[in-house]
């Protein structure tokens, strides 16, 4: 029960808002349960559009790349999504154009402009995890996910801002800059993959890679009104992802449509011999799910069993979010789903269990940052002093705190009380999910208890910030796949703030999530959730 969270004080401080979707936000029509023809066309897949126009000669990769680079130049001063913009973008685009003109084959992601979260290694490009301790660090290798994207012709346009080492939910914990939410520049984009989410929302990149340990792809997707896809643990290789919590981390995908997120996921999925925790499960051809809306039947999801997680709609959740979720549930029903409430009894335990596990594992994973073999080194007379100063000055406050908590939880005599217990709670949570997913095809919930809040609002209250992860952490503990897609708007900002619906699937069942997500998105009446604060683009 959310009410047993100790203490979710700050949640009760948020004013309860009524959702006036269709009435107050006139320019954006509310999701309506009808499926009749609407003047507003459903969002288009940027990957498919790019592929079509490149192969037809309608445009060139260089032109596309140039337009994205100029938008980045235009919007970065306000948004600050990128820590580093690649110097090779035009060169790579030209290479693609050359190959196309020679009639050579190009990969399925040819010309696609991709942002990469800065905790994912990109060879020769700075990869800092938004931390001073890795300032100027350039990895000698590409993460497997990056290598795959490049092999398929994708162009890495730059490294996106994040909370340092993935620890945070707002991107305010970056050592270098704070990213603004494109829907309201005074608000956070969410975290820790805030830069990647905002970049896609602001159309600075077509798609982007992020990482999700406790919701770091899904929550920013919700805050920024884009699609965030978290795969099953082991679906995508973690090799090259700077580890935060090894048993929870996954690389996730952002797109402006479900199809884009799905196609990017397909590109990076698969067993990797460099990651023993990557799965040998087959990767289905996701693209076949992304049929045109015209081909849908009248009840395209007939018979699909959807479980709405009861514990996510209780006290502490913004009423606007609650309404948006309920309307999304209605939309699913209109599509033919059978929506019932399910209960996950161990739900509220997920939050403390997650933070124990994440702090503990991160305290160990971050031990390697000592200034000896790479990164910033602070000279000192004595070895321990060297370690202490390099790390003390290199790490930010939140990172230091979590390392200390993790050190505590793993100490002799405390292991059983904290870490082992948290792992036992993980088993309980997995059981709950399994039971629920035996009865349902997918589960749904909000992605976060509220829409994006103001920059600086939660900075000093760790528990308040942690409380915001309640919707997402359990999914990481269970290792399941989940997708967040925008389903409505609530009051706030110049034109409302997006709210995302989270859909959770059974292990390795991304196919189903993408199918449902795609149909939901394509039949949702709306403008495609483009932030109105920025110049409009298709």
């Amino acid at each position: 029960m959310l009410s047993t969270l100790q203490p979710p004080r700050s949640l009760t401080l948020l004013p309860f808002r009524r959702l006036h979707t269709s009435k107050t936000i006139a320019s954006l029509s509310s999701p309506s349960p009808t499926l009749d023809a609407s003047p507003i066309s459903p969002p288009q897949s940027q990957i498919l559009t790019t592929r079509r126009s490149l192969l037809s000669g309608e445009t060139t990769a260089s032109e596309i790349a140039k337009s994205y680079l100029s938008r980045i130049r235009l919007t970065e001063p306000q948004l600050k999504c990128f820590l580093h913009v690649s110097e090779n973008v035009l060169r790579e685009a030209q290479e693609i154009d050359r190959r196309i003109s020679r009639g050579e084959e190009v990969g399925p992601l040819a010309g696609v402009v991709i942002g990469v979260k800065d905790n994912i290694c990109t060879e020769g490009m700075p990869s800092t995890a938004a931390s001073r301790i890795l300032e100027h660090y350039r990895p000698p290798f590409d993460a497997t996910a990056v290598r795959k994207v490049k092999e398929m012709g994708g162009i890495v346009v730059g490294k996106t801002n994040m909370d340092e080492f993935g620890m945070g939910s707002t991107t305010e914990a970056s050592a270098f800059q704070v990213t603004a939410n494109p829907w309201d520049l005074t608000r956070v984009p969410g975290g820790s993959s805030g830069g990647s989410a905002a970049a896609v929302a602001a159309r600075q990149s077509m798609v982007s890679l992020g990482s999700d340990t406790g919701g770091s792809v899904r929550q920013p997707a919700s805050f920024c009104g884009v699609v965030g896809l978290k795969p099953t643990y082991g679906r995508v290789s973690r090799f090259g992802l700077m580890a935060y919590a090894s048993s929870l981390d996954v690389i996730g995908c952002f797109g402006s449509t479900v199809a884009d997120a799905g196609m990017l996921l397909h590109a990076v999925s698969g067993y990797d011999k460099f990651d023993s925790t990557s799965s040998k499960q087959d990767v289905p051809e996701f693209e076949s799910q992304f049929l045109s809306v015209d081909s849908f039947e009248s009840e395209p999801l007939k018979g699909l069993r959807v479980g709405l997680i009861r514990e996510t709609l209780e006290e502490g959740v913004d009423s606007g979010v609650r309404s948006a979720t309920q309307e999304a549930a209605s939309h699913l029903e209109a599509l033919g789903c059978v929506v019932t409430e399910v209960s996950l009894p161990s739900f509220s335990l997920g939050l403390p269990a997650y933070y124990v596990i994440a702090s503990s594992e991160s305290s160990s994973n971050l031990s390697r940052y000592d200034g000896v073999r790479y990164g910033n080194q602070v000279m000192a007379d004595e070895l321990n002093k060297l370690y202490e100063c390099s790390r003390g000055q290199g790490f930010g406050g939140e990172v230091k705190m979590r390392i200390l908590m993790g050190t505590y939880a793993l100490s002799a005599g405390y292991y059983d009380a904290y870490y082992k217990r948290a792992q036992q709670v993980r088993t309980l949570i997995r059981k709950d999910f399994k039971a629920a997913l035996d009865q349902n095809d997918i589960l749904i919930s909000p992605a976060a208890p509220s829409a994006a809040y103001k920059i600086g609002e939660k900075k000093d209250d760790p528990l308040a910030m942690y409380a915001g992860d309640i919707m997402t952490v359990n999914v990481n503990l269970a290792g399941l796949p989940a997708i967040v897609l925008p389903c409505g708007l609530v009051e706030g900002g110049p034109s409302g703030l997006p709210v995302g619906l989270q859909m959770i699937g059974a292990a390795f069942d991304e196919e189903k999530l993408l199918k449902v997500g795609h149909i939901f998105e394509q039949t949702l009446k709306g403008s495609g959730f483009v932030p109105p604060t920025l110049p409009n683009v298709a």
Partner: protein
Amino acid sequence: MSTTLFRTIQPNHFTLLGTALFRTRRTTRHISVRCLNQTATTQEPKPSSQPRTAPKNHGSNKLDEILRDYEAVIGIETHVQLSTSTKAFCSCPNSYGSHPNTSICPVCMGLPGALPVLSSKVVDFGVRLGLALNCELSLKSKFDRKQYFYPDLPKGYQISQFDIPIASGGYVDVDIPLEFGGGHRRFGITRVHMEEDAGKLLHSDSGDYSQVDLNRAGVPLLEIVSEPDMRSGIEAAEYGSEMQRIVRYLGVSNGNMQEGSLRCDVNISIRPIGQAEFGTKVEIKNLNAFSAMSRAIDYEITRQALLYNQGQADQIVTETRLWDEGAQKTVTMRKKEGLADYRYFPEPDLPEVILAQEYVDSIRASLPELPEAKRRRYEDMGLGIQDVLFIANDVSVAEYFDEVISKGADVKSAANWLMSDIAAYLKNEELSINDVKLTPQELAELIAAIKDETISGKIGKQILFELLAKGGTVQGLIKEKDLVQITDPVEIEKMIMKVISESPKQLEQYRSGKTKLQGFFAGQVMKMSKGKANPALLNKILLEKLNAKE
């Protein structure tokens, strides 16, 4: 097995001193219920609980008396560097002696984003060694992270196995060399587990600089922890030697202490005889040879006994001491500040290690005959224990010996040749048995040729040298050098008569009592026959002729 391990609470022993080229290692604190009915099997009465008396230079009667009152309790931790082609968790080459920091990659350097991937060979070797040590295998084991900060530990943690090692609860049987009393001993093995090595810290001569070479970081190790069953330096040294023998027999490691592929750390405490409680345990490191181990232990036993005797037992503290080879004593490394907490937790980046029973069975079936089995077989063949220990000590020698026997050669002769002339040759030329040109087949030939008196033993020795150095066949050499023994009495008599006739003076002397001159005549006949006369026959006929009344 009632031994229990306090693994997280360990002595804090990180420092560098002088020429130490050591690695910090966990000390196990054996807080256990000692099974007072020993698992050791002995053919003779178990030696008294006294520690073996310290070597001669410590021997004074007073000291012996003091030592008689105490019993040493010794356990050994052995780290075996595996001779795999790659490191444990990455594909970097595992080769000794490369240029520093050349066998590195993101994984073993602990770069951000790198992940470990276990080599199947390491599991194979772990199972092999576990079975060879008569352990029970854990069909499901896992890895854990052992966390501490040190420049030779790139990730800030070592991947090891904490609570579920791959093998546990075994034993090893050894034979104590005759010169130290002989007898069989059985020592318990608490556990065997897989882990990775750290890099090397090299200290410059001037002492001002230390260098970090990470070639060795990530090299696979098997750690073997013994039960605290040893009672003396000799027993400990023999245990260590047996470990070396076994890993060499199995081919999992070259077991070379100088190279660091076999490292032993000793844990030793003493207690007054009759006391059930253990004394304070001291760890000794920097032991580069088994002889050093033995001496270090004897020294430490004496040191502790003297302190006890003087009522200063509280001066014995839990610490790590180094063996100073030059001064022949143990010295404090650093006084303890307290115990280190390694904050163990299960390694999330590595799946469980799961062994199928068929896999284990197939490895068990493929194990070579181990030293203990060989020793018992050789004993059954009738060889004396000295011979047994010599031949079984080196797997190549044992294999050579087995082949010679298989060609039908007489067991004792084969053993003798190996232990005397051949061993001497190997030592002089600094070769191993695998380098000699004399094939087992030819040695068997040689033995047979001597046995059926085709050639004499002396001739045999002569051609042995040539066979060892240049190869060739026994028959070939016999023909070439015309070495066939002369066994025709008539021919021998002829030669004898010739010699006698040429040496009337000596004959006179012999006949007047100087019977020793028989040797002179024999020697002359031998010379004349170019060594080919059959000695027995020669002497028989000679004697007849010499004593014949003319």
